[in-house]
């Protein structure tokens, strides 16, 4: 305690205030995510209702805004059951794996700009890892285990099918997901989310062009599709697929453990939207209020957070819109889309944009180099296609 109070990491530079700030930020981000998930679930139910001329939840609180809170409290006070055939330890552990990875992935997101708290300059970001993107990939990969273990440990058939689907689905889309991110990384040249965001900083309308959504548009589209697939959101929600697998991996879960899965699923979705905003849409960048002081609390604290949330909201509305409009894909079609289209497209895109960037730096003639690289990419694609196993072999391999 003596040591810890003054210098917990023994590095000589970090004092108690900083520790408190970090703890405060952690709690704040966690609370923010929880509230965001609750509001998102309510928002989703309301928008889907709107899209069908309905009213949606309106009895819990004003406009039903407390609906998710009611769901949560109810689930918390519900009895829990474990199937006899379940692997009890894994069964208990699985939901927490899902939740933790979903939260940890969010920790690298820059929510706002640099602010000063109690004289300390700090970023509105939980952790700015130099390898932030790798951490993100690791977390989204780990999140898979929550779902997979849940299905496997339930010891019954529908969850098992759901878990098999989950592992196959995540494997297929992880690659496309990573390659889409590489599309940004070759442009940004850094793995730190903070640095990526700073490269897209707002300097006027012209800076819209520096947002990676424009130079890396294809990567953006691939990212969105594979992110939705990674989070098991419709139309890729095969893992739960109520009409086919009853509830998929969480069929046997009750009460609070089910609530945690529910929470983790939507937390993942918000995290993915936030990552998309960070990588492609400039993160918290956006015009500040010119009539207020540029260093005042509104423009340093509020406006970046506002822009960040606004951009995330737009993406989240998109997910709800997808949910309302599209039927669900079939298992093999999902794999086809992932393996046969997204990965290859992402691959070519990475090659082409890599050539462009190198070419720009080296002063090559881009008009000659870009078509050449495209041809090369297509050539590799052809070889890949030719050597690719057919569908049934592929499915077997994955299973």
């Amino acid at each position: 305690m003596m040591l810890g109070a003054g210098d917990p990491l023994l590095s000589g530079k970090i004092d108690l205030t900083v520790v408190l700030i970090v703890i405060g930020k952690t709690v704040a981000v966690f609370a923010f995510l929880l509230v965001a998930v609750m509001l998102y679930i309510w928002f989703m139910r309301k928008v889907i209702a709107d899209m069908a001329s309905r009213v949606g939840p309106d009895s819990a609180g004003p406009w039903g805004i407390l609906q998710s809170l009611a769901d949560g409290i109810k689930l918390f006070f519900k009895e829990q059951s474990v199937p006899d055939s379940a692997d009890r330890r894994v069964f208990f552990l699985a939901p927490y794996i899902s939740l933790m990875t979903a939260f940890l992935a969010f920790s690298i997101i820059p929510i706002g700009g640099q602010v000063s708290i109690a004289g300390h300059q700090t970023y509105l970001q939980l952790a700015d890892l130099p390898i932030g993107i790798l951490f993100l990939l690791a977390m989204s990969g780990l999140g898979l285990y929550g779902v997979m273990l849940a299905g496997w440990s339930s010891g019954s058939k529908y969850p098992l099918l759901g878990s098999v689907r989950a592992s196959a689905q995540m494997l297929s889309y992880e690659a496309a997901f990573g390659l889409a991110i590489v599309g940004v990384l070759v442009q940004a040249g850094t793995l730190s989310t903070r640095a990526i965001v700073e490269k897209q900083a707002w300097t006027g309308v012209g800076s819209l062009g520096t947002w990676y959504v424009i130079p890396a548009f294809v990567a953006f589209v691939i990212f969105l599709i594979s992110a939705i697939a990674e989070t098991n959101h419709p139309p890729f929600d095969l893992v739960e697929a109520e009409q086919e697998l009853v509830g998929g991996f969480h069929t046997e879960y009750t009460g609070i453990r089910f609530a945690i899965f529910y929470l983790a699923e939507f937390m993942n979705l918000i995290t993915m939207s936030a990552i998309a905003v960070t990588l492609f849409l400039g993160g918290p960048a956006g015009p500040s209020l010119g009539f207020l002081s540029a260093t005042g609390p509104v423009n340093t604290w509020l406006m970046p957070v506002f822009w960040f949330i606004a951009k995330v909201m737009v993406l989240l509305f998109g997910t709800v819109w997808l949910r309302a409009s599209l039927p669900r894909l079939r298992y093999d079609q999902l794999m086809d889309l992932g393996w046969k289209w997204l990965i290859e497209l992402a691959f070519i895109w990475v090659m082409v944009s890599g050539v462009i960037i190198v070419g720009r730096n080296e002063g090559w003639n881009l008009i000659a180099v870009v078509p050449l690289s495209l041809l090369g990419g297509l050539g590799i694609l052809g070889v890949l296609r030719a050597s690719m196993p057919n569908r049934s072999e592929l499915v077997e391999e994955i299973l």
Partner: protein
Amino acid sequence: MSLTEEELTMQITGDSSRTDSGDDVAEDVAEQSVLAPELKRLSRQTGEGSQELRPLQEIVIAGGPWPELEGDGQTMIINMGPQHPSTHGVLRMMMELDGETVVRAKPVIGYLHTGMEKTGEELTYVQGATNVTRMDYVSPLSNELVFATAVEQLLDVEVPERAIWMRMMLVELNRISSHLLFQATNGMDMGAVNMMLYGWREREEVLRVLEIITGLRMNHNFIRPGGLAADLPDGWQEAVLGVCKQVEAGIADYDKLLTENPIWQSRTVGVGVITTEQCMALSITGPVLRSTGFPWDLRKTQPYLAYDQVDFDVIYTDNGDCYDRYRIRLFEVLESVKIVRQCVAKMPGGDYRVQDKKITPPPRARIDESMEALIHHFKLFTEGFRVPPGETYARIESPRGEIGCYLVSDGTGKPVRMHVRGPSFYNLQAISPMMEGRMVADAVAIISTCDPIMGEVDR
């Protein structure tokens, strides 16, 4: 797409392969019968009775055997239902899965067996409609109509012109609501959340019109032997024409939402294919049969009511897959709307119930005037009317196919036997051959597009 009688006959007879295939089948069956004792022994061994999955060889139907699948022993048997969101009530599918692929499937039914045929024997012909209407609860008026037609055949009476047109309009309205329900549940099964809500929305409008006319949303008890329970209410034209417009707008929405949607197409095109020959062997009727390129619709081919006096097309397609079944039902709604409009325009006046004192209760006003009317009233509502002995089979085209009513009378007020041939009961047999070799998600699509109504299957 309108077919004249000659064209239709040509289409039907032009297909010679059907009769040729007979010999092969006979051979297949001969092989099977050798297996029969073995099968019997197997079933005794497991003692699972009707819940046992039969060996693959069983499902050989006329027109050639189904392609066999080689499992690698890594299969798993799962039960879908009877409590499962996509089994349309209480159908239970036993499926042997190899990974996600269905190797074998067997529908197990009876979970909604209501004993309606027994109850039908205990109710008089006057009460009978209350019973049959609850069989196919999605299109209750079809059931009432077929029962009433059967009783009228036994009684040998002709119903008045107005009753015929009223019945036709009601049944077509009911066909619309039934197909809308199919669109809703089919969309839900494929994961299209809002399609379900749109389907319910338009269906609700149709139900409200039916409620204005009959007083009930479902299970109307409105079409009676001899006519209808009551005349059309005041202002029915506006209500019916209004709902026609709403339904058309709704169908346009569904069309935009799903028909061209690439995911929808990839989920349904080429899934659950069945051929005309297989339909013939398995006694499959209705939209499933029409989706195989065989335009058989009793409304056209063996017209009843006044279907020969209205203009409509038989919708049929060639591929026999889920997508075609979806499209057929979508466009049949529009044809039904067409018929309903013609009914509104051509509705004749006059009596709407047979004016036979022994069958139809007297008008209320006559009870006070005439002792005889009062006696008829009492007799009809206590012991019903007597039906001459005999047996008959009446059939109409319900939204799901040929619904038939086999009625046997012994001259008393209650039938000896009231059997209803529910089209879903037979169509359900198509599910297992369609499913084999497909994936679990396809199984859902196949059940859904066969549109079985368990009330009618189990009766």
